[in-house]
């Protein structure tokens, strides 16, 4: 077998294309919402000038002191610019699960049952982590 012509397997090329699209769009969103945050066009939940009073606290203490919701409850305050930035960060973390969701049917189509099962298990782990059930 020669690698010089086209060594990437079909599912690898699909995964790469989805990864490229996902990373570009999530980074674009990350940059846009951070510009919104920096320019102060949309008010934040925690004023930026007050951040130094809180960023030395643990994550749990920070949430209590600032009233920042944890888990998926941050969606309720997505209109605040700092919380809006969490959406950009969440999009970066969504890229891989979306790519795996695309990979499962591709492996099934190729009748690669072992890899279809591995992809499905990986997707389940990532969804479990994202769902908040694992974090309790």
């Amino acid at each position: 077998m020669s690698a010089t012509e086209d060594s990437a397997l079909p599912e690898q090329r699909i995964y790469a294309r989805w990864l490229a699209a996902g990373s570009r769009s999530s980074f674009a969103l990350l940059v846009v919402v951070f510009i919104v945050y920096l320019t102060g066009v949309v008010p934040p939940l925690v004023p930026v000038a007050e951040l130094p009073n809180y960023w030395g606290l643990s994550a749990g203490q920070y949430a209590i002191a600032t009233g920042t919701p944890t888990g998926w409850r941050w969606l309720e305050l997505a209109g605040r610019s700092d919380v809006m930035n969490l959406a950009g960060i969440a999009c970066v973390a969504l890229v891989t699960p979306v790519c795996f969701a695309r990979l499962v049917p591709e492996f099934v189509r190729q009748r690669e049952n072992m890899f279809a099962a591995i992809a499905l298990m990986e997707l389940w782990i990532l969804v479990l982590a994202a769902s908040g059930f694992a974090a309790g």
Partner: protein
Amino acid sequence: MRWSTILALMGFLMLAGAAAPQFALAATPPASSVISPFHWWAWPLALFLVTFLIGIVAVLAGVGGGVLFVPIVSGLFPFHLDFVRGAGLLLALAGAISAGPGLLMSGMASLRLAMPFALIGSVFSMVGALVSFAVPADVMQALLGITITLIVLLMWRAGRPESSGRGAGDRIAAALGLAGVYFDPAAGRDVDWRAQHTLAGFAAFAIIGLVGGMFGLGAGWANVPALHLLLGVPLKGAVATSNIVMSIVNTSAAWIYIERGAVLPMIVTPSVIGVMLGAKIGARLLHRLHAAALRRIVIVVLLLAGSRALLKGFGIWN
């Protein structure tokens, strides 16, 4: 417009944003105020500059950004370790997913090789992240110091001459089809590989996932030695595949950090932008600098940062 231009503009905006009047308004300080001689924006700006340097050095020394970021930033900046770990994990993830497509398309990275090990790593990374929030901050600092010291030893050892590069194969690797071939443009030839010691590889990636998830260190520092020295994958294939493993493993832990509120955009975004911009500069300098000498400097810096974390953990130097 090129991404590097957009990122550079972001850096400029950060500088400009620092002077924006709406941020100069001092809000009523809460009771838990921490007295700081600096304006609030000095820290994110300094973070951007430090992570820019980390991005350059990480590429030149061949280590992940996360492993430099967490000990250095937790030692120098006033941020709680929870937020530093969260940012370290996310910048490693961002770097991995942006480099991934090219590595996969070239065939140098193998998705099929990455998947089984990433699955084990993801589970343990999630467990590591969950455990980390149950451990007191000073204990985490001390554990970080010990971990960084061990990583330095691993880097020192991994810097020695590489193994033959072609594994002998085993039954599990054969059943999973963990073998392949990629074209090495520098050597101008095909490089074939076959994984070996697969069971030991699963154990190694479980430990790497656990440590990476606990401390937000990314995992490039350990993935490459595990893939190359243990599994017998040639070095370039190991580096490329490590990146894909990292993008998957870090995702599961990243969600735990997001869920627990350990992600502060004012720390994460300047760090991601700084490291990515720095990495682009680092890639351009790669052929001009003596990487081996730089790697030794990185080892010394990590040793110092690890010692600082240890001293902080034991309450000797806060």
